[in-house]
Every structure is written in C-alpha cells, then in structure tokens.
C-alpha cells in the first residue's frame, strides 16, 4: 500500500474519532508531535512537584501537610502515566529524562515562578491546576489512545487538586487582615502566569495547523483561555478577592468576560529560560536524579543477582 493511501486511511480514522493505537500506522509527524507533547506534559508534572514540595515542611497544620503530600504524590503519578504513554511511541524513558536535564526538552513555564508564601499553595491548586484541568479535560478526547487513557486517569485525580486549593484560599479569605492580604497577593502573582499556561494567541499560529486536524488538540489556546477566565472570574466572587486585571469585564454581546492583554514579552522570556526559577528547577531535578543513581544501580544489581541465583539452582 502506498504511503499516500495509508495517510488517507489514517485521516479517515481520525475523522471518525477512531483512536490511534501504538502499533497502528501513523505519519511520522504525528508520532513526533505526540512524543514531544506527551513528554513535555510528563516533564511538567514532574517539575511541577518542586514549587509545592518546598512547602511540605512548612505547612500550617498536619491536615494541610497530608493534603499537600497527597497532591504532590499524584503529580508524580501523572508524570509516570505520561512517560509511559510517550514510551509507546518508541521514545525511551532514559532519553526523555536526559532531554529534560540537558535543557533540550521543555516543561510548562508556570513552574519557573516561585512559591513565596503559604497562600501560593492555594493559588497554585486553584489557578494552576485549574488551568491544567481545562487542557486535560479536552485531552481525554485526544486521538492517540494511550495519551487519552492517561488523561482520563489524571482528570479523575485532578479535581481534588483544584478543590483543595480553593478551599485553602477560602479559609484565608475569611481569616485575619494579614491572611486576607496573603490570599490576594498570591492571586495577584499567579493570575497572569496561569493565563500564559494556555500558550501563544491563536493568531500567531501558521495555517499548517495539524494538531487540530489530527485531533491531538480539539480546542485552540484562546478558546481554552477564555473558558478559564469565565470560570475564574465567577469563582473569585466567592472568595471576595479581585483579579489583577482592570480590563476584566463581562461582555454581554460575546457572552464572555473580556480581559486585558498578557505580557507576551515575559512569556517568551520565561520560555527561553530567563524566568525567576528556570535554573533552580533544573538543578533540583538533576540533583535528585544523580542522588538517586545508587538506588537504581543497587536495585538492578539485586535483580541481576537474584536472576543468576535462580538459574544456578
């Protein structure tokens, strides 16, 4: 069969919403795009543990500490589901980890911002996990089977992340003057970076828009961002706080909230590695990897020894 035919059949499957599975024929670019996106998504989950991990030992109560640990453990699991999905495309785990550590592979820029106060734990859960969920709910319907299944699993776990964040802010919002100020400050610092999580504006894209054609993505960046703004602009009323955007306003004609322009300069700076914590995050990942090397080697040596032992017996 000619590759032209294969491509046509592939597109027909996509158009009929038939999932693509690991051993199915797929265009090279589809494989590469998925490999790249899924592995970056995995890296984001793993690096995403760092800003919150810093606060485990400083959580204000045992309850909050247990919640935070549970959430961070979930994120580690999300990383694993996604690495495993990327591996079905032929990329080795080791290669992905190496690409992250060498700086070749990227992860979501949001994690290059620092978590300065306890209130940030609430703001991250509500805004950062909230923004991630918008994207991930869409991805439960992505065309590559293993990615879609990983997303279903992840979405089931994510809703607790956002809820615990909001609840934590809610407590602060009803607290002392100082607690209310912490709450507002965290929202002010995380709002714009959270909006940037959806990526560049649609108009910056070229028309070779294969991600939508191949149904890897099913909504555009701007659609998802608008959906997020509409949701948060309502939820913040419950907190009695404000979003740091004077242009934020309900637009009855559009049936959406209007909002101000993102600082795209900052966006590109952080993507290029010049965010507040880019260096620190990567260093922390590398250090954890290097310090864990002896554990990996010891486990392997133990397994090898056991294997030769059974053979000899």
């Amino acid at each position, binding site marked *: 069969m000619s590759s032209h035919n294969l491509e046509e059949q592939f597109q027909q499957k996509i158009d009929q919403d038939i999932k693509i599975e690991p051993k199915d024929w797929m265009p090279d670019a589809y*494989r*590469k795009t998925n*490999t790249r996106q899924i592995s970056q998504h995995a890296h984001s989950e793993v690096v995403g543990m760092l800003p919150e991990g810093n606060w485990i030992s400083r959580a204000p109560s045992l309850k909050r500490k247990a919640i935070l640990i549970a959430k961070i453990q979930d994120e580690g699991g999300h990383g694993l589901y996604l690495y495993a999905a990327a591996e079905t*495309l032929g990329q080795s785990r080791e290669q992905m980890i190496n690409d992250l550590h060498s700086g070749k592979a990227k992860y979501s820029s949001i994690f290059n911002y620092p978590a300065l106060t306890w209130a940030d734990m609430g703001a991250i859960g509500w805004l950062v996990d909230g923004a991630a969920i918008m994207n991930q709910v869409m991805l439960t319907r992505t065309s590559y089977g293993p990615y879609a299944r990983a997303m279903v699993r992840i979405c089931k776990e994510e809703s607790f992340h956002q809820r615990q964040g909001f609840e934590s802010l809610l407590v602060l919002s009803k607290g002392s003057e100082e607690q209310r100020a912490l709450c507002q400050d965290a929202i002010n610092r995380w709002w714009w970076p959270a909006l940037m999580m959806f990526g560049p504006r649609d108009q910056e894209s070229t028309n070779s828009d294969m991600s*939508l054609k191949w149904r890897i993505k099913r909504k555009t960046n701007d659609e998802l961002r608008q959906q997020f703004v509409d949701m948060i602009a309502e939820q913040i009323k419950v907190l009695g706080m404000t979003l740091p955007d004077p242009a934020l306003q309900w637009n009855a004609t559009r049936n959406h909230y209007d909002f101000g322009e993102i600082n795209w300069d900052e966006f590109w700076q952080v993507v290029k590695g010049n965010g507040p914590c880019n260096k620190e995050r990567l260093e922390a990942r590398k250090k954890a990897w290097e310090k864990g090397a002896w554990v*990996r080697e010891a486990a392997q040596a133990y*397994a090898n020894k056991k294997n030769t032992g059974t053979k000899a017996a």
Partner: protein
Amino acid sequence: MKQFIKKLYYGDIPDAGSGTTPSNDQQPRTDWPLWEVFIRSKQGLDHKHVGSLHASDAQMAIENARDVYTRRQEGVSIWVVESKHLTASNPAEAGELFEPAADKVYRHPTFYNLPDQVNYM
C-alpha cells in the same frame, strides 16, 4: 513527509529543535525493564490492563503499581508481566484475523425470530 507543527499549544512548549529527533536514535538503554500492570478492581471482576511502569524486578513492579495505580483503593489484586513477554496481534492484519466472524450472524440470539409468547427465550 514534510509537515511540521508550527502552532504552539499549551503542553507543547515552544522551542525550535526540541522533540524533532527521530524516536529510535537513543540507546544504549539502561532503563529498568518495562512491566504491564493489570488490576482487579474488586473481588469477582477480571484483572484489567491499567498501564505500565519500569521496575528492576517483579516485586518492585507490584509495589510501584500499588503506589501509582491504587492510591484510592482502585484495586484488590495486581498482576504484573514484563512487557517483552506479551505477544500482540498485528493491527495491519486485523482484517484477515477477524474476518471469519464477520458473516456468522446466526451466532447471535437476535438472528432468530420467535413468536411473542416465547420471545423472552
């Protein structure tokens, strides 16, 4: 095929050069072996494939599977099998493989029209 994805989506962080290498250029691999994980969600149900993970041996695979796939009591039993021991049918040959069942409608109860009195059969 000369198609490149230019659009920059969330989860697809822009950076020229990344992710563009062919997927098979790595090696030698020092990863722990890959295991497929099957979970029985409750007594009386089949084990079902839930995903995969790396582990140095079977015991570690089970412990990791517990930590990753059953943190919310999703299982009462775990099977792990090293991925290299699985044999899968070839999707390209699915047509021929499953063709024999295609023309045997009489294997289904709905093929038989019975009078109303006995139609609960």
